[in-house]
Each structure stands twice: as C-alpha cells, then as structure tokens.
C-alpha cells in the first residue's frame, strides 16, 4: 500500500502508523463531567466504531517521514485510497516537490 502523504508524496505503508477511525469527534471536555457530554458520548468516542465495509476515513501518522498526522479516505475492501489530507495547523504547510506517482 502506498499512502499519498500531501507533504512527502506517496510513501510505503511501512513508514506510517495507523490511528484508526477519524470520524469520531472528541466530546467537549468542558461540558463534562456533570453536563453536556454524557458518559455515553465518551464511550462512543473511546470504544465504539462504525467499522464500515467500504469507505473509511482514518488517521495515519507519518512517523518515519514528516511526522504529520493525516486523514486518509480508504476503502476497506479494495484498500484503494481516495485521498489524504494533513490534519491540524500544518494543513497548509508547503508540500515537498512531488515526483511522478503511481
């Protein structure tokens, strides 16, 4: 598998570590405990997964590269990657000049 890191270009799977489902929003801690986010919200965030067969939005960490966290859209049946974006304040970082990709 090649993951198209927006910063480094397409890189081998072996350079990345998996971060799992990226669709879960962390409940707002300031409304808990006591109000706002419920225990169930936190359970949902920490333990429950949609685990779809097909399109999956997921985190990958380019730990042996630019060390950026990426949000990757990948099909869990074909393993085909639709796209990847940088997560967080470095999303607009200057990409490295890319060479031809598969």
């Amino acid at each position, binding site marked *: *598998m*090649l993951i198209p890191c927006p910063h480094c270009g*397409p890189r*081998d799977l072996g350079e990345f*570590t998996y*971060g799992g489902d*990226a669709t879960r929003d*962390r*409940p707002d*801690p*300031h409304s*808990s*405990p006591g109000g706002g*986010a419920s*225990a169930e919200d*936190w359970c949902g*965030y*920490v*333990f429950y997964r949609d685990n779809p067969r097909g399109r999956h939005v997921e*985190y990958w*960490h380019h*730990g042996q590269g630019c*060390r*950026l*966290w990426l949000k990757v859209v990948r099909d869990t049946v*074909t*393993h085909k*990657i639709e796209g990847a974006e*940088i*997560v*967080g*304040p*470095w999303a607009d970082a200057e990409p490295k000049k890319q060479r*031809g990709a*598969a």
Partner: protein
Amino acid sequence: MSGYRLESARIGDTVNFTFDGKRYQGVAGDTLASALLANGVDLFGRSFKYHRPRGLFSAGVEEPSALVTLGCGARAEPNTRATVVELFEGLEATSQNRWPSLALDVMAVNGLAGPILSAGFYYKTFMGPTRKAWKFYEHFIRKAAGLGKASFLPDPDRYEEMNAFCDVLVVGAGPAGMMAAMTAANSGARVILADEQSTLGGNLRDSAVATNPLAKLSATDEVTLLPRTTVYGYYDDNTLGAVERVADHLPAPVKGQPRERHWTIRARQVVIATGAIERPIVFGDNDKPGVMLADAGRLYVERHGVAPGRQVALFTNNDGAYRSVAALSAAGVAITAIVEARQEIGDQARRIAAASGAELLTGHVVTRALGGQSLSGIAVATFDPKQGASESAHRHVAADCLLVSGGWTPTLHLASQAGGPARWDDTLTAFLPGEALQPWRAAGACNGTFATATALDQGAAAGAAAAAACGFASNAPDLPQADDEPVAEAPLPVWDARPKHGKGKAFVDLQHDVTAADVSLAHREGFRSVEHLKRYTTLGMATDQGKTSNVIGLALMARERQLSIPEVGTTRFRPPYTPVSLGALAGQARGANFRPTRRTALHDWHEAKGAEMQAAGLWMRPRIYPQGGETVEQAYVREARQVRQSVGMVDVSTLGKIDVQGPDAAEFLNRVYSNGFLKLPEGKARYGLMLREDGFLWDDGTTWRLSEARFLMTTTTANAAPVLSQLEFLLAAVWPELKVAVTSVTEQWAGMAVSGPKSRDVIAAVVDDIDMSNEALPFMGVRAGHIGGVPVLVARLSFSGELAYEVYCGAHHGAAVWTRLLEAGEPFGMIPYGVEALGTLRIEKGHVAGPELDGRTTAEDLGLAAMVSTRKHFIGSAMVQREGLTDPQRLKLVGFVSTDGGKIRPGAHLVAANDTASPPRSLGHITSVTYSPALEKYIALGLLEDGPSRLGAKLVATYPLKNIDVAVEVVSPHFFDPEGSRMHA
C-alpha cells in the same frame, strides 16, 4: 530405460553430479531433470500418500512429481523440483519420502489400502478406543507425512533486499513480455523485465527472434533485465514481490554474493505475460513414470538434446501438442502412435503427424498406462464425446514414454491476485484473466493468446498502452516474424478419458495422490463447493499448488454436479505464485539484525567496564557491573548499598525526552498530565502522570520548565515513541488551536543520574557555573550550566530517594561528562550502577515502574490518586471515575516483606495463609522484588485485592510453577525513608 542424449545435441562441458549417491554426468545447460533423463533415470520420487513410484512429469515450475532434496547438511533444500534446478559441478541430490530406497519403498503397501485411504479417511477414524488414542496414531502419521527432510543447522547463506521503482514492470520474457518491454522501453519508459527462467525469451529463447531484441534491451539504460527472477506476489498499489535466484545455479554463493535477492518493485504499470501451463488428461495409472506433459517432451528435446523416450506415444485433444511431434521427429525420436481424442484435426497438425510416421488414431483416447515401475505401453480405446471411451474396443500400444496434452491453463496467478474473478472461455476450455483492479494488462498465452505471432503483437500493444498510461508517446519497434505453428486453440473437453468401469487409479493431483474417485467421494459427501473440494481432498494443496490439476478437479466436480465449470467456480489465487524461501522474504533483517539495536552515548564505556547488558525494548542498558565472580544479586546489592552510603551513577539516557515549546506549552501539558502544570515555575521540574482516554494509567515522568515557553518532558523508556505520537495527535486533531511544537530529543541528550549523599559534592566539584547549595538548587530545581565547558542541565530529581541529580548533556559529550563525574566521585568511592540496583532503590522507595504500569492499573490503584486532579480537564478525566475503575475490590499497590527469610519471586501470586482450597484463590500478585540492603531482607511490591486495607496481614506468596511458598506480610510500599528526608537533604 527411457530417455537418452540425442546425437544431434550440442554438447557442452561435462558436469558431474550425484543422485542418491550414484555418480552421473550431465552437460552445461542441463537441468537436474534433463541430466537424469539423459542418463535413463525414470524414477525420481515417491508420492505423498500411496508412495507410488513417480517420474518426471513436466519441465518447469509446475512439476508435481520429481521432487528431490538438493545438497546436504546446512544447505540441504528439501522438496526442490528437479525441473528447475540448473545443474552445477558437484551437485548432490537425494530422493525423498521413501524407505529404505527409492526403488524399494516399503510404504508402497499404502497403495494396497487405497480404498480405505480415500479422501478424508483420517476424519473418520483413529478416534478410539480412548481419548488418548490420537496421540498414539498421530506419532506415526507425522513421521509418515511430509516430504523432504529439513536440516536443523542454520542456513549459512545470505539474502539481500532491493527496492526498485519503474514505469513498467513486465512479468515474463516470452514473446509477449519481450515485445511489451521492447515497446515500453522504446517509448522512453523505465522498464523492468523479469522472468523465472535462466535465459529470457520463453519459447523463442535461443532463436534470433528473441536474442536480437533482448540484446538491444540489455543495452538500454532505463531497462533492467532480471532473469532467474520470479515475481511471486501482487500487492496493493502496484507493489510486487519478486525473488532473484542469484547463486542457486552455483555450488555455493561466491564471496559477497547473496544466495537470493528479494525485490520489492513499485511499478506504475504492469504487463503480465506469464504464459500458460499445459495440463494433462486423466486416465488409469496416469502417474506411471514415463507419462509426461507433451510440451515438456518437446523442451527436453529442443533445449537439452534429451529424448524423453525411445518409443514415444502422444495423447492429445488439441493441435498444440503436434509441435512436440514435430520436435521429436526432427530430432529422430521414434513416435509410435498419436492418440487423438478428436475426429478432426488441423491441417498443419495432420501434416506433422504424417511426416512423423506415427500411427494417427483419431477418435481415440488412452484409458490406462501399462507397465511395472515405469511405462511399457498404453491401453487405447475409441472415444465418443457424448458416450466417452468405449468399454470394449481396446488395444495396446507399446511405449516407454507417453506425452499428454489436455490443453493449456493460462498462468493467472498475478492477474487473480490483483483482479476480479477469472472468466471462463469455452473454446479455449480455460480461465482467462478477470477485471484488472490495479493498473495491469495481460498479454500472450496468459491472456489466452497461444499463437506466437499474435502474442508478439499483443505484447507490443500492451507495452505501448502501459507506456502511454505513464505519459510516454508510443514508439513501437518492428514486430519480428514468427514461424507458423499448430496452436492449442480449441481443445476437445476431455478431462477423464476412462470408460465407466476403467481400471487403475486415476490421478488428478499427482503429488497429493488425489484421484478422480476422491473427487466423486467429495461430491457424494457434500463437499461440493470448490473450497470444500480442495480442503476435503487436499487437491491443489501440494508444493505444485495444483498448477496442472486444479482445472481438472473443477471439471470433474462439474461433471458430478452436472453444471458447467464456471458455475462450479474458480479459486482465487493468493501469493506466492511459486513457493518462496523464507530467507529471501526475511532479507537482512534477521538474527542480530532482526531489529535495530539502540545504544546510548555511554554504551562503549559500559561494555569496556564489563557491564552485563540487557535489552530494554530496542535499547541496551547495563544490568549490573559485576566484580570478581559476583552473582547478579551480589552485584546489585553492592551497587545499591554504595548509592545509599555514598554515591553512584546510572545511565538514564534511554528515557524518552521530548522538547515542548510554544506560548501554549504550559496549557498543553496541563491537559496532557493528570496533575497540574500551569503553575510550574521556570527552573523547576514536576513529576507527572499521563492517563489514557479510558482513564487507566499510561505513563509517568518528570517534565522540566526550562523557560516560560519551553519544557523538557521525560517519559518511560518503553513509551517514548507512543507518547510523542500521541502528543502530535492531540496538537493536530484535538487542540489545533494550541501553539505548541513537540520534538523528540531522546537521542540528542545523554542523561546520567548521580545519586547518594555525596552526589552534591561530586557535581559541585566539576560544575563550572551552578550554585549547588540546597537553597540555590532546591529539590526539583533545574539549572543550566557547564561541566568542563560542556553545556549541561542539572535537575535535582530523585528516583532512588537519595539526594540526587540528573545531569543531561549533548549526546556527543556524554562519555566525557560521565567520566569526569566519575573521576570527581573517586574520593567518595563513586560507582556506576545498573538497572538492577536502580530497581532496588526505587522498590525500597515504593516508586512504580513498568511492572506496575501494566496498562490495567489506575492512578488510584498505585496510591497516586492525589495526582489526579478533580479541578481540571485532562486526557482521561472524563472516564477516570467510572464504576469499574473505582471498585473497592480492585487490585492495589502495597509492599511485602518476607517473614520467613525466603526469597519472594516476581510473578508469584498472593493467597491467604489459611486458604485450604486446591488450588487456592489468587488475591493478587507480586510485581517487583529485590533484596533490600537497607532493610536486609527480601521486599516486594505487588498488587493486592483491596490492598491498603490489609496492611499487616500475613499472606503467602505462592509460586506453583516451582512449588515455592514464601510467607509475607503486607506493608506500606514505602519501605525506606517514607518521610523523604534524605532526598531533601
């Protein structure tokens, strides 16, 4: 005796070799198979189950029968197909799965029990008389099973890894592949052309049609030719695995050469031109040595100058096999009869048959092979496509070799690994590549195109299309001219040629002894889906992976189910295409290099001083510095005692170190740690706890505030990488608004902890510019300064409970600072100490470490509840109060002292002294143990059910694995100086 060397053969250098200890001679260019065939050897091995004699069946990777053990000792290589072994001087080969000898194998009695040893028989028996029965039977079954014998000696050879990138990878260098590579290269693409054979060119090899273009290709810069290279696996995103056999054709690798080289090839486009494999037709005793695939017979004649027999018969259902007739006739080999299932054959085939002088029996099939250990003749009957073979009209034909062709099976393995289900072609009676799910194209025989001229054309087109897909304008070379030849275009679908009551065992899978009757039995018992058929009969599960048998098995099941072949289904192929050595897959990352070894800046010093080193994850750390003949315990006790009495120093460079900077750094740390960090003043350190989101304890360490916006965080050795990764995640995905950057500085800083009452004196003696007084550098204080001009950070932290300091300096200065400190400590008897003594000191203080932070404990379990703030939010705060985490029955940290002087063992469990149950109930377990020089007894930390309420209880630390019980008393985990007066001194 069958085969022999043809007079017409170009004779190369003589090559000496042995088979089963007997000396033979072959010639350069031979395979082991061709050389043995030339020497008249027709018995190569014994079959898996019935131990039937087996000969040579093919001339390639599909070989099911001629398996030998190559070499001996540490280089012994079992289950090697004689058909792919290139002969070299001194080669030693041994036959397999026979006793006492190949010719006389007593296990052949299994053949008599044939009907009992039907498919799946073992599921139906060996179950009694008692439950233990299987253990008895299995002992013999294991011995009888298997094929070759592997060595117990380490493989002496080396394996290499390569990563390659190209525009177009062409797999297979036959007519189609060669032209694809030529065309793509001509267009300017970077091309890799790989082929499993020693010489490229496939069926055209050695002819000018191939040698000229190949010479041109090899002279092209952007082209890599990889002969002897099998592309075995097609993985995601056009990543392909290949193995190059670098030295298997030599007696041993020459110096510096690997035996094999693994290639990971990332290609933008792939052309699959992997050819096709001929398949046989089933008849009675079709496994007899002397029965061989038709095209194999041709190859032995044309490539090696070896006749497959002296009286050869042919059995076919297609025109393609007549190429073999032509080749044998041209070489002067006598062909006695051509048994042709069809009534009508192609003109060219008919001309070849006539010219050969063989008797042409159209509308006939071979029903049985005749002879003893090898073929002496065949039984032939008339055949009607609807009625099958005649039951009565038989005749016998003398033959010492029968060439069989039942048509061709395109080599779909790679296409299937990266594609949709295969498509059935009724005319070719073959499966063809399905939809391409990755950027590949198939060309040539693997695409069902058997004629050379068409394959050349199709290859060129595939190469052009692949290059175009990479953005290269097509620039096609001229197509070479190919000779006209008969082609296996429309084989008559004859799968099993036997009449209804045919005699002899009829094999589908030769290596696993799966017969047509086994397929029928599988059907009868309901194992009807392809996968059930395979698993129940083991069809296609042998080392040849069913290359010549899978389609036949499917056809026979289709006959039983009265369905068409595609309705029965097809098998999806998984890597590898042919078996791949574990050595090649492992590459260089094995043995000592299995994982990287991380060494601290002080590693050489430790080793020079005789430290016993110990792995801590990937790091190596000094365990003890033994003196004289000290045991581990004597050494650590001496080291720990010296620290408490005077001063010692330990290498703490392996701790994770993370530089945290930015205006929001303090806020960030305050959210990451369970205790407060907002108010940590500059020049101060604080011990912090990190929880997981689920509220369980994760990591601990001290974090030092170096300036308003800069912190140095330390983590445990084990969690250095995951903590950094988590911090980066939080800053990217959870709190992107925080202006903080984190960087690993673990390897940039060398760290050493100087501990003991004299530690202040030692550091004061060498430090240039730090006031070491208690007032100027209080407990938890951090100062920057210099030692011998080297910039250092000095933090007054204590893991040992003594007055202690951690000194950090740039890693390259580590050894200099370390020795300088030791020199300064000489007057105090300062010693280096290892992780054992480090453990002793922390256990005496009740500090937790890895064995307590096991991923299942909470801060409260470990007596650290006060460090979990209830006044702020942090990672884990939302879930730390859940019922399961606050259950009073949880295991909690307490201390233990041995009350009978016995040695408490780590891993022991705690049981009540009066528990008489057998086995008694575990109340918890011992996590860390040491002999305490301070208390002069064995002490331990452990996790105990509701521990703190049991202080003073008398329990037993039981170790049933060694039948050792030690009486213990539950005590506070803070064994030594619980007030902490020493570290505040």
